[in-house]
């Protein structure tokens, strides 16, 4: 149980950059990935902007055979495959294998199959043409579609699990992979999550009146975490993937090491004490953060950076208060804090994995990415946190420990503690 777990590979499909080099450049320079979506205007959505990765679908043939590519319609699967296989290659390993890789497993999450792709299924069945659906629908409709494609391509032979915990999915997947290695079940895990917000899912969020609707004419300004003018979040799509390895196992093959995972926690507020289906119980959140620190054997003072959930809804203020209470740090003493969502919006189940990739890049390259659009910080935030703790420009700084948390519908929480590898 004393083994250490390190991150040896990263992959990302983000609205502001596909692939690690493009993504790193974007987060260092505060580049927004939010764009106006003409289709959403036609559909009478209130919010008409979104984060969509600039993803060339046919590039998938670089990762999978043409036979597999033919008939692949699930956008979430495509994003997840690209991120996972990029992370695998980044960690210095070849795709091909004849024998199953018994020591390697996968925990990859998503929330829902590509409903737009499934529309064809519904239409066919309703037209009494179910016979014409073919063999490729079920594997893409099933929740484990993305893990099945990843594990099949790489011949993974250890535990292969699909998780789903709304906006906490990605962080939870990483924690689950960490725990499997920690407990000695696997030597290596591919972890991450993927999300494609199609028009049907987007429309459902739009109807909840939780999306930013006042910036349709200036999309890059639309995602404004912690601001007075924050009017809701921006739904986005993408995927993030990490290769986690037992330290000794990684060292044996001279793997490059980005960072170490010290520990984490995943819990639920039970939808009690202020927690509901859609809002977090502050006690649950505080416990989750404190348990993550305890499991990682760190003290609150050691946290150099908080990578917040911070979606640009009313919940931001409560989140800051929860962090402040969990860490017992306030004002000038509050850790530096940023929200990647200011640049890319909210990638829902993929948020945790993409934001974790960003956290690890900040450790590996020793910088703190800016909070863009933080022009009018909310007084209830600045009452608790000094403005210089919420950088609006990139900072070059030594950072050793990052706390990354996400909170999801269903009152579920996940928090990870990443560290520079020493």
């Amino acid at each position, binding site marked *: 149980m004393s083994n250490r777990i390190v991150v040896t590979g990263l992959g990302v499909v983000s609205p502001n950059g596909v692939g690690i080099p493009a993504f790193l450049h974007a987060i260092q320079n505060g580049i927004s990935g939010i764009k106006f979506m003409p289709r959403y205007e036609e559909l009478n959505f209130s919010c008409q902007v979104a984060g969509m990765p600039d993803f060339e679908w046919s590039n998938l043939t670089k990762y999978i*055979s043409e036979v597999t590519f033919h008939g692949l319609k699930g956008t979430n699967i495509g994003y997840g495959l690209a991120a996972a296989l990029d992370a695998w290659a980044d960690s210095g390993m070849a795709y091909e294998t004849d024998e199953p890789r018994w020591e390697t497993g996968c925990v990859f999450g998503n929330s829902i199959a590509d409903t737009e792709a499934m529309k064809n299924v519904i239409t066919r069945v309703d037209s009494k043409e179910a016979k014409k659906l073919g*063999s490729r629908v079920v594997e893409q409709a099933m929740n484990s579609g993305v893990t099945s494609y990843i594990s099949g391509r790489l011949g993974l032979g250890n535990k292969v699990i699909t998780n789903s915990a709304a906006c906490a999915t990605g962080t939870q997947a990483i924690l689950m992979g960490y725990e499997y290695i920690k407990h000695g079940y696997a030597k290596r895990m591919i972890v991450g999550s993927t999300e494609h917000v199609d028009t049907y899912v987007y429309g459902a969020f739009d109807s909840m009146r939780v999306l930013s609707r006042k910036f349709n004419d200036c999309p890059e300004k639309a995602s404004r975490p912690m601001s007075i003018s924050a009017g809701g979040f921006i739904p986005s799509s993408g995927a993030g993937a990490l290769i986690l390895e037992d330290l000794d196992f990684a060292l044996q093959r001279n793997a490059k090491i980005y960072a170490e995972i010290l520990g984490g926690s995943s819990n639920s507020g039970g939808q009690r004490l202020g927690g509901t289906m859609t809002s977090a119980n502050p006690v649950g959140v505080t416990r989750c953060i404190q348990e993550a620190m305890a499991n990682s054997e760190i003290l609150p003072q050691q946290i150099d950076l908080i990578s917040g959930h911070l979606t640009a809804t009313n919940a931001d203020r409560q989140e800051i208060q929860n962090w402040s209470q969990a860490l017992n740090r306030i004002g000038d003493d509050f850790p530096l804090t940023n929200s990647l969502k200011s640049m890319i919006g909210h990638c829902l189940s993929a948020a945790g994995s993409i934001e974790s990739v960003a956290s690890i890049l900040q450790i590996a390259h020793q910088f703190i990415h800016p909070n863009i659009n933080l022009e009018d910080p909310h007084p209830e935030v600045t009452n608790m946190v000094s403005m210089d703790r919420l950088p609006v420009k990139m900072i070059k700084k030594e950072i050793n420990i990052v706390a990354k948390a996400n909170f999801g519908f269903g009152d579920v929480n996940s928090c990870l503690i990443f560290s520079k590898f020493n």
Partner: protein
Amino acid sequence: MTRKEILDELKKVIAPYTTNKEMLDSINDQTDLIKDLKINSANLVDIIIDAEAKYQIEIDYDSADKMINVGTCIDVISEKISQKNEEYR
């Protein structure tokens, strides 16, 4: 349609489902779809659906079960095309 014409079209139907593209040019009646062309057995359904669309025929379950190699595929397709032509006559 002659067997040769059906074969030429059948190659196009099969192409997206075989990982053994080199063999596709030289297939003959004996070529086995699964063993030789390395087609995933689940994808045989897709080949049948594509063939139905291509030749505007319907391939029933019993006929589909016979489509194991290129020769039997041509047999079934040829039979269904002539059945269709009978109906139109």
